[in-house]
């Protein structure tokens, strides 16, 4: 049988071009027996349904992946989320991870930083350096990336409400290293909408928060073309208890809200859409997760094309980071978590993720130790180099089960997105608690199934053992908070206060108007204005959001 003309077309126009630009990792991929592993398995007979729903990798609707050769060209980025205590200690951990073969950094900030409080704010008490690194000013950021070349490493920053400030600090540090902003690579999470429903690190109400986000889209399009301006995140929605389909639906609905907000301020969709990225959860339900990732790619491509009329292929591609499911980890028999993480990581890779964080076995107990982090990274390396799944593209395509599940999840998500649209969009659905209630209902239903034994959690409600001692855990030095506060005081004493005051005044005036705030925030961080000071100016202008605590 001769090759289908569309396949030949893809090989000539898309695959060939990609191979020229990005040669594959090996000249040939073979199994132990010497048989060649095909790059892409396709049906014997390619029909219209196949072309419509699956197509070829690197081409619309991207069901089979965003790159023509996927991991044969380049493995996913192994990006371990890390950060704790002080900038100096986190810097040590990053350099350890880079030495161990991690290929991108992912910065965890402590809660005061994420919520825009300096380390000496009363609300920060007890939280400084706990779940991430404390960053009060540019001085901390300089220490955090000391001896890490920002033109070589890509950095993802889990920062949302104050993301403009942390991005500005990153740009300023790069500049000091002699790296122009056009050369830096990375991602800011910058996804405020999911904070209101799942993660909780909001500062301002939704509407001014969206203005900050569109300011970032606009500024970055010219100043930091290599930076992903947002990571639209289902991860936390899933951790809060949603189903896979809800995770996908609420995430893509949030994505639509960001795109619409940017269009509303007059940005061209093809200018900013290529820098949108996504972040999903991978749970242990391997096949459901693979289907979810594939469905998400297809649905987003269709939304961008049909709803938002994007034309550039890069605007249609859903590129995503994945983290394994933290809430699936158990405090009992913690070595079992390594197996859970393996299944979850495998799901992410079979689903075509662009980057991956694997959780550590001890994270149901505390932040991970260095040993546990190493095992988590090794898990990815084993999947990459030993399992063989990275040697062919979208290997589960064509499985009756996987394709049916992909269709089902896509249909469920479309129905939910339509419901949100009818109810006036995501912001209205957040304000009236619709999305929160959906997630809570799913979380409660799951817990009831665990309670009554319908759902087995190994080591928790079945197959328990008596465990004596706890494993060695990472303990943080309680002096971190006082050390950080004294460093902050030293920065405040050393800087030129009149420059700080004037940049903050300009920021206040600009926040009240419509000017893009990014250049002004960049000037403010360079003057060593602190994160808390900058956020306070914005709080005064934008107001604060408060959780109503409805059940």
């Amino acid at each position: 049988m001769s090759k289908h003309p569309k396949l030949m077309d893809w090989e000539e126009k898309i695959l060939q071009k990609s191979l020229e630009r990005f040669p594959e990792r090996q000249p040939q991929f073979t199994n132990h027996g010497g048989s060649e592993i095909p790059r892409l398995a396709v049906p014997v007979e390619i029909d219209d349904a196949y072309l419509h729903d699956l197509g070829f990798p690197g081409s619309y609707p991207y069901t089979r992946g965003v790159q023509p050769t996927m991991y044969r060209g380049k493995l996913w980025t192994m990006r371990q989320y890390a950060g704790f205590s002080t900038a100096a200690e986190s810097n040590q951990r990053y350099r350890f991870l880079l030495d161990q073969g991690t290929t991108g950094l992912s910065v965890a900030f402590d809660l005061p930083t994420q919520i825009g409080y300096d380390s000496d704010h009363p609300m920060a008490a007890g939280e400084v350096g706990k779940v991430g690194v404390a960053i009060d000013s540019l001085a901390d950021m300089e220490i955090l990336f000391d001896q890490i070349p920002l033109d070589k490493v890509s950095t993802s920053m889990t920062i949302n409400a104050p993301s403009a400030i942390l991005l500005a600090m990153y740009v300023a540090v790069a500049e000091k290293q002699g790296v122009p902003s056009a050369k830096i690579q990375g991602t800011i999470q910058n996804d405020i909408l999911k904070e209101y429903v799942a993660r909780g690190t909001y500062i301002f109400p939704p509407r001014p928060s969206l203005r900050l986000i569109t300011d970032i889209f606009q500024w970055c399009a010219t100043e930091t073309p290599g930076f992903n301006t947002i990571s639209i995140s289902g991860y936390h929605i899933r951790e809060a208890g949603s189903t896979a389909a809800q995770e996908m639906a609420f995430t893509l609905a949030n994505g639509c809200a960001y795109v619409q907000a940017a269009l509303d301020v007059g940005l061209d969709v093809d200018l900013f859409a290529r820098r949108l990225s996504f972040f999903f959860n991978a749970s242990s339900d391997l096949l459901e997760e693979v289907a979810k990732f594939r469905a998400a790619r297809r649905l987003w491509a269709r939304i961008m094309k049909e709803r938002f009329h994007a034309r550039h292929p890069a605007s249609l591609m859903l590129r995503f980071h994945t983290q394994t499911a933290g809430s699936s980890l158990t405090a009992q028999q913690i070595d079992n978590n390594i197996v859970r993480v393996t299944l979850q990581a495998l799901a992410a890779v079979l689903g075509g993720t662009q980057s991956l964080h694997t959780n550590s076995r001890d994270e149901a107990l505390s932040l991970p130790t260095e040993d546990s982090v190493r095992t988590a990274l090794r898990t990815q390396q084993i999947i990459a180099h030993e399992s063989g799944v990275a040697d062919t593209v979208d290997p589960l395509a064509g499985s009756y089960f996987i394709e049916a599940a992909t269709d089902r999840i896509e249909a469920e998500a479309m129905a939910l997105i339509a419901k949100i649209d009818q109810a006036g969009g995501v912001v209205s659905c957040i304000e009236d608690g619709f999305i929160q209630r959906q997630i809570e209902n799913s979380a409660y239903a799951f817990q009831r199934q665990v309670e009554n034994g319908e759902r087995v959690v190994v080591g928790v409600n079945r197959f328990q053992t008596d465990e004596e001692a706890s494993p060695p855990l990472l303990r943080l030095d309680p002096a971190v908070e006082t050390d950080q506060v004294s460093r902050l005081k030293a920065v405040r004493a050393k800087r030129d206060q009149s420059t700080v005051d004037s940049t903050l005044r300009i920021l206040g005036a600009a926040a009240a108007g419509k000017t893009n705030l990014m250049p002004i925030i960049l000037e403010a961080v360079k003057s060593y204005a602190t994160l808390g000071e900058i956020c306070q100016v914005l709080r005064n202008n934008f107001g604060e959001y408060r959780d109503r605590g409805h059940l």
Partner: protein
Amino acid sequence: MTTDTTHKNRVLIGKAGLDGHDRGAKVIARALRDHGFEVIYTGIRRTPEEIAAAAIQEDVAAVGLSSLSGAHLRLFPAVVEALRQAGASDIPVLGGGVIPREDVPLLIEAGITEIFTPGTSVATIVKAFTEACATHRSGRTL
């Protein structure tokens, strides 16, 4: 205030500090409600003082705290202290979350009635709240 006005099964579930992980708090709140408790949930990001004030204002028989950010050693005792300062040291405080086992005795020492670590069944937690409420009632009738 007399025991007559104290709702026998009214409890407050609180999230102190900056931690936004509220899945556990909400699941426990709903489970308690399903078991006949009247539950007030504070929402996230409350100060210890706000939680104590809400507990007193709502006249609850017990307070449940949840923390997954590692700040429990500071925040749980701070709630106990805030209740004491407000003259409500008779309201028992229970807590749960990502809490290493060796921290449990420190928290008990600081006046927390009971600590639930990951994997604790809802049934265990409901039972503990039932007992805490009963102790609170009997304490008040003395």
